[in-house]
């Protein structure tokens, strides 16, 4: 690991000041992703701003729902009563992610920002447009396209990158209509989670819409319009401590056998949690039966384009959606 300077921030405003001082500065929270990437030489900042002690680690009731501080630990949020009572989907997704040791250090903001686990991104001897967008001969290329791409995207990919977002938490937040609260040098802004992460297009180096001089301060969860049941289903190569091949976060409210409200987000399939509000809208008013669930799944995967090794994910995602919806029925 290249050496670097480290400065500690006690307040969000100090963190922002320290960050804007140099372009090769990064925030560090739990460090579980950043330190890992620095060891591989994928990130090599000159300065780290330690934000781990900012007073932004509480979960609190608000007029419209619940606000979670960006520095709240994943393991604390997963057992917080406000979350387990009102947003069990988030608690379930958090506990499905990583290991106890990692969740104890991982923060909400850090989890939003964690980078892809694409093997070629991690292997600095292979080309990667996300890790190294430009070389002297033009774009670097993508090791995964034409390489071994069993874990890669089936939706929303581009010819420059087929990586997926690896987070479980993000999938649940997407289904829950979460809003990311951001503080910048010129004030605050709010970005709905579904617009926070980006599709790769021809700038895959940018995972999300956060500017380099901005700090995530919190995540808001609005109280759902209608109470319903929820479920997070994660499918992976072993029973625990592995990233998702496919995951599905569902919320559904059913009355007299009819779907009244429904949210579905998919993980492991795209550069961002995959949600299609138009498909959800059409499902409202339909009978809550397997036939409807199959049709919803088919529509969600209608645009899927497999790579050489991951065509199995399409069927897997469809079946996992149906299974999830049956679970919340």
């Amino acid at each position: 690991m290249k050496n670097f300077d480290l400065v500690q921030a006690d307040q969000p405003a100090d963190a922002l000041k320290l960050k804007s001082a140099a372009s090769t500065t990064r925030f560090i929270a739990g460090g579980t992703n950043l330190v890992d990437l620095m060891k591989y030489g994928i990130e090599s900042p000159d300065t780290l701003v330690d934000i781990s002690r900012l007073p932004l680690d509480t979960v609190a009731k608000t007029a419209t729902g619940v606000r979670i501080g960006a520095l709240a630990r994943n393991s604390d949020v997963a057992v917080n009563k406000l979350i387990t009572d009102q947003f069990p989907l988030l608690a379930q997704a958090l506990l499905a992610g990583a290991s106890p040791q990692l969740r104890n250090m991982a923060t909400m903001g850090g989890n939003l920002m964690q980078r892809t686990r694409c093997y070629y991104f991690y292997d600095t001897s292979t080309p990667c447009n996300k890790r190294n967008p430009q070389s002297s001969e033009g774009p670097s290329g993508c090791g995964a396209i034409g390489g071994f791409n069993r874990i890669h995207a089936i939706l929303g990919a581009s010819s420059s990158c087929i990586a997926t977002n690896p987070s479980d938490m993000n999938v649940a937040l997407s289904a829950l209509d979460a809003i990311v609260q951001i503080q910048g040098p010129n004030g605050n802004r709010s970005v709905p989670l579904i617009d926070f992460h980006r599709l790769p297009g021809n700038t895959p180096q940018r995972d999300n819409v956060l500017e380099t001089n901005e700090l995530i301060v919190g995540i808001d969860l609005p109280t759902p319009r209608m109470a319903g049941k929820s479920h997070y289903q994660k499918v992976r190569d072993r029973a625990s401590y592995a990233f998702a091949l496919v995951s599905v976060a569902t919320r559904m409210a059913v009355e007299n056998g009819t779907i009244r409200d429904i949210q579905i987000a998919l993980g492991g399939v795209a550069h961002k949690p995959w949600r299609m509000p138009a498909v959800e809208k059409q499902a409202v008013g339909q009978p809550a039966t397997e036939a409807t669930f199959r049709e919803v799944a088919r529509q969600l995967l209608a645009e899927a384009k497999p790579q050489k090794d991951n065509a199995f994910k399409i069927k897997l995602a469809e079946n996992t959606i149906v299974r999830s919806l049956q679970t919340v029925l």
Partner: protein
Amino acid sequence: MTNQKTYLIDGAGRRWFLKQSSALAGLFALPPLRFSTAAAVDQPTGLPPAGKRSLTLKINRKTYKLDVEPRETLLDVLRERLDLTGSKKGCDHGQCGACTVHIDGRTANACLLLAVMQQGRDITTVEGLAPGKTELHPLQTAFLEHDGFQCGFCTSGQLMSGVAAIREGHADSRAEIKEWMSGNICRCGAYAGIVAAVESVQKGGKRV
């Protein structure tokens, strides 16, 4: 039942073992053995070298003062500087759990923590689990009784996670133990014994 004293790796016993093994090593050019007392590792006074930070770490109820570079991980500082080699380096990337320590009472992978960020935190390593020099922690005893060792490389991390699983109430069934021990990746022949040991301590109801 196993005689605990035979297994205490400390003081005279450890020195005896090291003497025997270095005699066996014979002609190999071994580096000089270091027997640092467990007290604070003192650096010569003066300003820390360029790029280094003066740091105070609270580990196993003792205070250590040292100068570190910001890039040094807690695991490297424990092993390379403080001679606390109980925490092991397996993958060095948060994937195996061999480096598991407790930070303010909760488990963490020391390989992904920067030492400079741990000032003021309460750090416990496997060396600090036992209540005293002549007594093992109940889970350490249970590992002996249930044969929870194989190569032993993963043992210290498994102990740290096992203790946390019991303390936090995640050891009520074998399935639950396995889920909450999943950050410690070793699944060798010793694993069945490890799970049994955690289960027996939980059932024994002793405060851990």
